């Protein structure tokens, strides 16, 4: 049964008011809490029993899968291996995410290792939100790993969001992009207090006319720190762009390291990176529309992390 805290967590990570429609798998404190499959989307526990396999039939369109994880058990460090097989020509939305509710002084953590096999012509939107709430003083740790293998002419849009509450996050994203395929990644991270977040990205443009756009938006408050690394490697005629923006507030620290590697003469790779305080002209504009300084800062950050 889902209790009030679970429901709150579900609402935050997956925008769910209760049990979702369509296929879903809810994992709570390392155990299966509920599962539903659909005619086109199958969910099974994997052979080793340490995760699930989500199999989406070729040609499945306009369906969604929710796979939220809830963690509320003191001292638990949950590790899960999930595999997604996205059938040819399908078009689906996958909503993942992990919510930690920490009520004690013991740490709690979740490491989700997600592998995506995106078949030719398939299209997915992957939405992953990480949150942590609760009065406990224990550390909340989230270490997600995402591995993406894209065949030809596939499209994937990944929205990875962590807006506060998480004390330590180490993210690893890996992707291999096949011919004519497009991968769009947007990562939004807000850290505060003493929190730290690290994101390491290894993206390979492997096939002819593959494309990627990697966007990172960071807001670093308090004494927190964020490190962002991308290695973008091109092995074919392709196009890749990296855009990293970090706003530092208070005493935050940021490192942004985009690297481009062209192993093919027709590769076109670009990057833009900026680190700085909130731009003064933006503040002046909002204040000239009647907002006080703090309200103006909030609105700018809100837009930035949208």
């Amino acid at each position, binding site marked *: 049964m889902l209790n009030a805290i679970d429901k709150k967590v579900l609402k935050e990570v997956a925008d769910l008011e209760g049990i979702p429609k369509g296929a879903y798998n809810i994992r709570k404190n390392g155990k299966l809490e509920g599962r539903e499959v659909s005619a086109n989307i199958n969910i099974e526990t994997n052979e080793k029993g340490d995760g699930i396999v989500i199999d989406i039939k070729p040609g499945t369109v306009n369906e969604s899968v929710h796979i939220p994880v809830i963690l509320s058990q003191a001292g638990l460090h949950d590790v899960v291996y999930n595999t997604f097989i996205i059938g040819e020509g399908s078009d689906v939305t996958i909503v993942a995410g992990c919510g930690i509710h920490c009520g004690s002084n013991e740490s709690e953590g979740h490491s989700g290792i997600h592998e995506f096999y995106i078949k030719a012509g398939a299209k997915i939107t992957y939405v992953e939100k990480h949150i942590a709430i609760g009065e406990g003083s224990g550390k909340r740790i989230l270490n997600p790993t995402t591995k993406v293998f894209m065949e030809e002419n596939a499209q994937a849009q990944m929205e990875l969001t962590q807006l506060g509450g998480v004390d330590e996050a180490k993210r690893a994203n890996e992707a291999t992009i096949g011919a004519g395929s497009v991968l769009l990644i947007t990562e939004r991270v807000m850290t505060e207090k003493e929190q730290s977040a690290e994101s390491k990205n290894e993206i390979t443009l492997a096939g002819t006319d593959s494309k990627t756009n990697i966007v990172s*938006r960071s807001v670093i408050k308090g004494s927190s720190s964020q490190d962002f690394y991308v290695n973008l490697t091109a092995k074919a005629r392709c196009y890749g762009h990296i855009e990293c*923006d970090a706003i530092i507030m208070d005493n935050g620290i940021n490192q942004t390291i985009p690297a481009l590697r062209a192993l093919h003469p027709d590769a076109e790779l670009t990057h833009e990176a900026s680190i700085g305080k909130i*731009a003064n*002209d*933006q503040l*002046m*504009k*909002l*204040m*000239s*529309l*009647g*907002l*006080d*300084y703090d309200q*103006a800062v909030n*609105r*700018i950050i*809100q*837009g*930035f*992390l*949208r």
Partner: protein
Amino acid sequence: MLQLQNIIFTVPASDSGKEPPAGQTIINDVSFTFEPGGFYAITGPNGSGKTTIAKLIMGINEPTSGRIMFNGNDITSLPINERSNAGIVYGFQHPARFKGTTFRDLLSISLGSDDEEKLVNIISRVGVCSMDFLDKPVDSKLSGGEIKKIELATVIARNPKVAIYDEPDTGIDLWTIGPMVDLLKREQKENNTTTIVVSHNKTFLEAADTLLLIKKGKIAYTGDLAGAMPMLEDLSVCTFDELCQGEDDAQCYR
């Protein structure tokens, strides 16, 4: 009534690198009274101090000395947002470009409401912005003309008592300038908005009741356009007046 009283603005130490040195005077003893509901145009050469005057009125620049009075209150040290709440709004010459923030966001802040109907109303009142601007991010991808239209709309949406537009016509296509002047005129008439337009454009200069010509941080002329014409023509002839030896001469520096 908005009154500038002996305003002097010198470059603050914090803003200056080596050039120009701190202490350089940008606005040199400017006094002027803007009457309620009047339509004023401010013109003058590049770098003469027009934007600086506008920013002094909005509170973005703080005068080194002098006073600014608004409807009987001394607003010289009032913060920007409080001036805005008192009814003064400035449309920037170079509008800020955000990341993620949309036209809808700015318009809702300006209106104090995100009610769809009100937003649509304001867009149709402004006329120059198309409805599908609404969810566009106000970022570096907008064209120069688009962002100026958005800037103008955010000023009008606040129903200001005093509206200052800093070169609203920059980047605006020929077909929109006329309607833009009509719009500002209409706002002036219907809401008795004191309208101040910084411009080099003759259409705006003709629309104004009073023209202020700024030269080297001072008001060089106030009055109607006809009276300003000799000085404007003089300015438009050549900016190398100290070096010039006549246009037919081989040494023309233009």
